[in-house]
């Protein structure tokens, strides 16, 4: 645990919506997360960066239990993550997730990808869900693709559909796991634009990314992870201007 980890959140007005307390995770002998502490306030935008294998993805995947942590406690909107299917499903409904490889459902049209969650999980009638889906597609600027299948869309379009799908359940928090890493360079901007708009609307976001321009523009807090631990956490100004830790300095010199 590093002393800087929880500090910057205290200056945010929003009360905590996500809390990780001394979270540890191992894959066999490999210590994937070491005493991770992180508090994210309502409306706060956190960018997580670090070298590959540093545990960034593992950390955010623990937040909606796509990975199971072995030690420590995780709270989402006041509910603790415990090994109980109902609790887990309840927590997952508060969280939208966007994956590196989009993971759209290839056998369903774009609009069906969007309506599936609300219809099955929230039991919203199909036509109401479709109206809501069209609104979401307007928001990510691809309403004209509604009847197509994911395979007919470009990577950037697919990722925007994935964002729209995650927003359908009106989540309180959005998790992004390297949302632009699988995209061709010319498509990255269209996805980041949607994310920036989402941030401007006040969505709580945790974003694992190497897009430092995005981090500078949007983040309230930048978390740098290495070797399974949070090495440094600061707001963008100090983080880029004078990083405290040598590992952070090295990482920044490599990617900037």
């Amino acid at each position, binding site marked *: 645990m590093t002393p800087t980890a929880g500090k910057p959140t205290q200056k945010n007005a929003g009360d905590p919506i996500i809390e990780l307390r001394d979270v540890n995770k191992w894959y066999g002998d490999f210590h994937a997360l070491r005493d991770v502490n992180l508090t994210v306030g309502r409306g706060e935008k956190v960018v997580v960066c670090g070298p590959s294998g540093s545990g960034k993805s593992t950390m955010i995947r623990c937040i909606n239990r*796509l990975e199971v942590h072995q030690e420590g406690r995780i709270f989402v909107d006041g509910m603790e993550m415990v090994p109980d299917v109902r609790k887990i499903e309840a927590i*997952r409904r508060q*969280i939208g*997730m966007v994956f590196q490889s989009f993971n759209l*459902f290839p056998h369903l049209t774009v609009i069906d990808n969007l309506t599936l969650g609300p219809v099955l999980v929230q039991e919203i009638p199909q036509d109401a869900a479709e109206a809501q889906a069209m609104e979401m597609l307007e928001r990510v600027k691809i309403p004209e693709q509604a009847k197509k299948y994911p395979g007919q869309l470009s990577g950037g379009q697919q990722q925007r559909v994935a964002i729209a799908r995650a927003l359908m359940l009106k989540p309180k928090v959005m998790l992004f796991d390297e949302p632009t890493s699988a995209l061709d360079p010319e498509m990255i901007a269209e996805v980041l634009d949607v994310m920036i708009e989402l941030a401007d609307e006040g969505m709580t976001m945790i974003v694992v990314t190497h897009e430092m321009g995005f981090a500078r523009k949007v983040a309230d807090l930048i978390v740098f992870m290495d070797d399974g631990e949070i090495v440094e956490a600061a707001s963008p100004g100090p983080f880029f201007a004078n990083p405290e830790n040598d590992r952070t300095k090295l990482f920044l010199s490599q990617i900037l």
Partner: protein
Amino acid sequence: MLTLLAMWALFVTIPDFISWAFINAVWQTDDSKDCQVAAGACWAVITEKHRVMLFGTFPYDEHWRGVLAIAIIIILAVISGFKRFWSYRLFLVWLVATALVFLLLLGGVFGLKPIGTYQWGGLPLTLLLFVGTVVGGMPLAVLLALGRRSSLPAIKALCIGFIEIIRGVPLITVLFMASLMFPLFMPEGVTINKLLRAEIGMIMFFAAYAAEIVRGGLQAISLGQYEAAEAIGLSYWQKTNRIILPQALRIVLPALMSDVIRAFKNTTFVSIIGLFDVLGATATALEDLLWVRYALEAYIFIFILYFVFCFSMSKYSAHLERDLSEGRNL
């Protein structure tokens, strides 16, 4: 050289076959003596015996029920071939249709004369056994495949045990077990109909093989699909029914079709335990001493019958394979 040899073999046999099968053949007669004087095939055996071959010992006046049963199954099968009708509802339609065909043959309802299953036979029996095997076996196969991948050790062990034991023995053994041993384990006085027992045996056999094919499909679905479904809060069964199975089954459909075709051919085994499917019924028909000499002609007819069914299914499966590989995302 080999080509020449093959051509020569055809050249020698084909004209003989044609003159036997067509030119010198007897097509129509009431009297088997007419066949004895002719040099060619005696197709009259089919016109004479087709009722017994196709319907076994089913009462003669009620054969229309068998015809209706065959028609229901074939029409529904053709409809099921169109992709636009594919849904879980189609399965329910099959379930209802199977029950309907069963009742139609059994009678005792809607003013139909009751006919015991021991009198059933021929093509309606073959088709009913076949459809029952697939309709009953498919959901069991899916459950076994899911169970084999379950994280619950007891369920997993049960499914692996079932699949491996059934796959480790021949179908005949399963049928004998079902028909002979099963009653021994039942309490005194409880008897399960022989047809039903055979059907259960065939369902178990089909399910064990199909389960392994379905499992292959499940393994082909990327982890991301499971995670995306979980991330939007779907429960296990919602995820399985709406995301995983539709994709997995589509991938393995051509492979499953070959199992379905095999299930059709496997219905012939029931004649061994004393049920008269179309092959068994034909054997019975040929017990008539006047016509027994023309078994070859009768069996050629049965051969063609099976070929038509299996070949159309296999052609359809090949078409499906092309269709599905072209538009993976459609």
